[in-house]
């Protein structure tokens, strides 16, 4: 390692702390001092010989070498000795039924562990139903956990494919405007030239984010995300070119680089060098290279790349905004730099202080952010669209993993507790033979970890199935490297230990005298009833999710009904692409297939929104507005709540009147009717509110202002005569071609294009969660129900002899579960109402939290639960008294 003497970072002279801790933990106490001393001494030698970093590495390895049988045995023996001294004091009350001739072997003795394993295996084999229930529910929840973990791993691996990662930085801009500080992930382009002259900056890359541009193909427009950059991009970042060269960006301003994915999307192949394509407003470009899709996620996803020189040419033509030399236009350009060594970050930040800029209204400061810190992101940054998960998201995911695992662990806990009676005798006998409590705990923990490890086998197929149904997870791939396998096993072990801890602790506390004296009369303890509480928790959570599923499904259904009844199927929309549309509209209106045309950004719901600040009586608000064709209200027969529509003759130059919707009226004035006739300040112009429209019945309910701004109209809606769609489409397209031959027409059927039945994202998420949780809960209750029949066979037999009918017997057992279900409902329904209300605030007030929806949700869960229970308790009716009672 080449360390210059000016390097400011202090060299670590100490061995790594984790290795020291490991050493303390693993080494037998009496040997620790000398062994650690020797290692430290050798570490000091190593530091002089090979440098601190390799010495630390060596020390870590050396500490790991303590994991060998000799030391471990002695360590365990010393622990056991300590235990022997410590335990008898505490267990004096329970231990000495007789004094064993030999002290029982220590907890961690290999023979003992083998024995635990054997007994655990036999127990699992003996109770196949319970084992299967536990394994299935654990594997299901672990599968979700694994998927989320894989997502987390992808997050942490983001951008790790760039070479010399720790020397790469992104320049951030901190804008201070009237005392308000905003941090941007972008930086002004002129800064790059200045950075280039800094001695420890090896290379800079300018990236200009141009956003989506339409690429014109014969199938219509394909929006492609364009970035402008320079050849050094491929040197600094880990992106590789499959064919072509990066230099073509510098040589030829009409050169275009495509990624594999984009090339496949447009041409269906990646062998397209030299093909020419046309971007709307930008012109013609020739494919000069294919970029390999990056192996990992990145914060800088590329679809198509043009040269930064072509951006300058386009600026001259006025096709894109001119920011190359403008310090103020920093919001859509980014600067990256590679430093000469990773220690230069502080220096760079100090240097960047000198570049602070004063603009008209604000001033800009610059910061360097290591690429590694982008994902998961810690700071709140603007224009940082692909940074991926933030730390908050990471925490949420961890929380979901934890709670799902816990829910499945509940199954194990409740089944284990329900079976406490049958295990009690075993515990009693074990203790009498001389087992310590620790050994009994060990036995139970071994069982639970074994179950979790078995579940791991089923987890993998579950993951592959689930990954298909979870959005954004299709491209999750599993690399079977050691880290992944070790991670999986650790996860299973932890799950097993968590699930086993509580039952082990409770069951191991049995007093042998009590459990062995007379099984029937003892009241073991209240703790066993915990399993009832666990069932209630599981089912309340299920009910909560089911309520969300039902209300969202209800919303979707109603929404679809509204759409199909209001939106006519014979309306086409034509994207105007910023062109002057008067002549076009006249000509289209003249077509024989066309009934009416409307130039509007609103058709039952906003198609394109703008935002305005609105002032009324000293109150200023930000409100969305939409440009509307006044005739839209008339022709669609929408009744105003108050006031009137725009007058038919309106001056085009100055805006006089606006309409508002009910929601906006409510926000603006306490009594909405009084708003009509009042003057509003829209930005700085005064306009009069002329009428109030009812709220939109499709989509979200936003406060909206309807303005007549012919220049901002982007869409022509065309109502055609029924059954003429084919001819009308052809005719309209040919009219468009006459007017704007260089652009393709984007003409769609409104209903098919905007409202073709997609399932909402919420539905997928809630539906998926509800299903998984319900399966887990059902599996749990299945086991418990089966067990409760088993333990009560004798009681049921006697009842039958006494004359109880079969139905009565089934009822006796099922009743208890019904009560649990009701209690779960009492908790789950209010929780569902609460969460539904939160959801309603986010999605608008169409969510119906009425009695019917709630009852449907509750009934669904209750029926599934009770049917599961019945599948077991039905056996109670088939009991033959002779068989179950003959043994007594």
């Amino acid at each position: 390692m080449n360390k210059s003497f000016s390097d400011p970072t202090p060299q670590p002279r100490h061995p790594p702390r984790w290795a020291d801790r490991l050493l303390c933990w693993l080494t037998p106490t009496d040997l620790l001092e000398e062994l650690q001393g020797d290692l430290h001494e050798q570490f000091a030698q190593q530091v002089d010989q090979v440098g601190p970093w390799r010495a630390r590495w060596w020390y870590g390895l050396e500490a790991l070498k303590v994991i060998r049988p000799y030391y471990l045995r002695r360590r365990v023996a010393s622990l056991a000795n300590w235990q022997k001294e410590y335990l008898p004091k505490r267990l004096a009350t329970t231990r000495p039924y007789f004094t064993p001739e030999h002290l029982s072997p220590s907890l961690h003795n290999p023979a003992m562990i083998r024995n635990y394993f054997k007994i655990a295996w036999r127990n699992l084999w003996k109770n196949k139903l319970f084992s299967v229930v536990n394994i299935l529910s654990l594997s299901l929840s672990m599968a979700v956990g694994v998927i989320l973990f894989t997502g987390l791993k992808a997050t942490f691996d983001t951008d790790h494919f760039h070479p010399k990662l720790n020397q790469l930085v992104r320049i951030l801009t901190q804008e201070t405007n009237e005392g308000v500080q905003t941090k941007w992930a972008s930086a002004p382009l002129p800064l790059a030239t200045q950075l280039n002259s800094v001695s420890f900056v090896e290379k800079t890359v300018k990236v200009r984010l141009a956003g989506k541009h339409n690429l014109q193909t014969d199938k219509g427009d394909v929006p492609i995300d364009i970035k402008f950059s320079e050849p050094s991009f491929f040197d600094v970042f880990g992106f590789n070119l499959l064919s072509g060269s990066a230099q073509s960006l510098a040589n030829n301003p009409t050169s275009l680089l495509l990624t594999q994915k984009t090339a496949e999307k447009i041409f269906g192949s990646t062998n397209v060098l030299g093909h020419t394509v046309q971007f709307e407003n930008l012109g013609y470009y020739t494919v000069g290279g294919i970029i390999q899709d990056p192996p990992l996620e990145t914060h800088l996803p590329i679809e198509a790349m043009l040269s930064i020189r072509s951006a300058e040419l386009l600026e001259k033509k006025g096709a894109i905004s001119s920011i190359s030399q403008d310090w103020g236009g920093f919001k859509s350009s980014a600067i990256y730099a590679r430093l000469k060594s990773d220690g230069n970050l502080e220096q760079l930040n100090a240097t960047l202080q000198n570049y602070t800029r004063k603009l008209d209204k604000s001033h800009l400061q610059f910061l360097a952010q290591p690429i590694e810190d982008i994902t998961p992101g810690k700071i709140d940054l603007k224009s940082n669209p692909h940074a991926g998960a933030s730390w908050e998201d990471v925490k949420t995911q961890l929380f979901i993993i934890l709670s799902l695992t816990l829910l499945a662990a509940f199954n194990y806990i409740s089944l284990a507790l329900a079976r406490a009676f049958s295990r009690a005798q075993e515990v009693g006998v074990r203790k009498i033979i001389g087992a310590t409590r620790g050994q009994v705990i060990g036995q139970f923990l071994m069982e639970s970890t074994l179950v979790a490890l078995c579940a791991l086998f089923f987890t993998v197929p579950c993951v592959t199935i689930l990954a298909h149904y979870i959005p954004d997870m299709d491209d999750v791939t599993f690399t079977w490297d050691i880290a992944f396998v070790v991670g999986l096993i650790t996860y299973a072990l932890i799950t097993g230990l968590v699930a086993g801890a509580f039952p082990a602790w409770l069951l191991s506390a049995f007093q042998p005298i009590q459990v062995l004296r007379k099984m029937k009369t003892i009241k073991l303890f209240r703790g066993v009833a915990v399993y009832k509480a666990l069932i209630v928790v599981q089912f309340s959570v299920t009910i909560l999710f089911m309520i969300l599923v039902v209300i969202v499904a209800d919303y979707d259904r109603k929404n679809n009904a509204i759409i199909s009844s209001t939106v006519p199927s014979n309306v086409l929309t034509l994207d105007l692409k910023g062109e002057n549309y008067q002549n076009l509209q006249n000509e289209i209106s003249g077509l024989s297939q066309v009934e009416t045309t409307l130039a509007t950004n609103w058709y039952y719901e906003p198609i394109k929104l703008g935002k305005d600040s609105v002032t009324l009586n000293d109150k200023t608000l930000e409100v969305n507005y939409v440009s509307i064709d006044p005739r839209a209200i008339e022709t669609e027969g929408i009744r105003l709540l108050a006031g009137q529509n725009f007058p038919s003759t309106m001056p085009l130059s100055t805006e006089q009147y606006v309409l508002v919707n009910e929601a906006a009226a409510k926000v603006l004035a306490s009594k909405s009717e009084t708003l009509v006739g009042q003057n509003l300040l829209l930005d700085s112009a005064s306009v009069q509110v002329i009428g109030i429209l009812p709220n939109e019945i499709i989509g979200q309910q936003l406060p909206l202002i309807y303005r007549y701004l012919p220049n901002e109209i982007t869409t022509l809606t065309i109502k055609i005569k029924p059954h003429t769609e084919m001819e009308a489409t052809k005719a309209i397209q040919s009219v468009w071609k006459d007017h704007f031959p260089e652009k393709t027409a984007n003409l769609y059927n409104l209903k098919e294009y905007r409202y073709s039945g997609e399932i909402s994202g919420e539905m997928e998420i809630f539906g998926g969660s509800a299903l998984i949780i319900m399966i887990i809960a059902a599996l749990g209750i299945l086991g418990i129900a089966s067990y409760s029949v088993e333990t009560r066979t004798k009681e049921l037999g006697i009842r039958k002899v006494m004359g109880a009918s079969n139905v009565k017997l089934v009822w006796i057992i099922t009743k208890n579960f019904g009560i649990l279900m009701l209690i779960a409902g009492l908790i789950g329904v209010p929780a569902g109402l609460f969460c539904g209300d939160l959801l309603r605030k986010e999605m608008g007030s169409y969510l119906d939290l009425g009695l019917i929806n709630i009852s449907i949700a509750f009934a669904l869960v209750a029926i599934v639960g009770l049917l599961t229970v019945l599948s077991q308790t039905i056996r109670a009716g088939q009991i033959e008294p002779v068989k179950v009672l003959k043994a007594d």
Partner: protein
Amino acid sequence: MSRTYLGEFEELVLLAVALLQDQPTGAYGVTIADELKQRTQRSTSVTGVHVVLYRLEEKGLVGSELGGATLARGGRRKRLFTLTAAGQQVLREMRQLRLGFWEALPTPFFS
């Protein structure tokens, strides 16, 4: 077998103790590991050497005492090993055994 059984590495460690015990540094983990590394060109880890030393001590071939804390060790004492009479005896027997074999070999074998 009446004689104490020694593995190859154990024998080397025992010899290293014999060599180092009278030198000023003394025979302990680090010096023994260094000595072995120098002579055998094998990478030897301190933890491995320690295991062997403890085994030899259990067999009664070496004795040990604590002492000699230094700064580099963070003030921890060393376990200094010395050869016991039994250890010396075993080394001697080993040597005899080997010499016996070599003498029995025909002379051309050496060249």
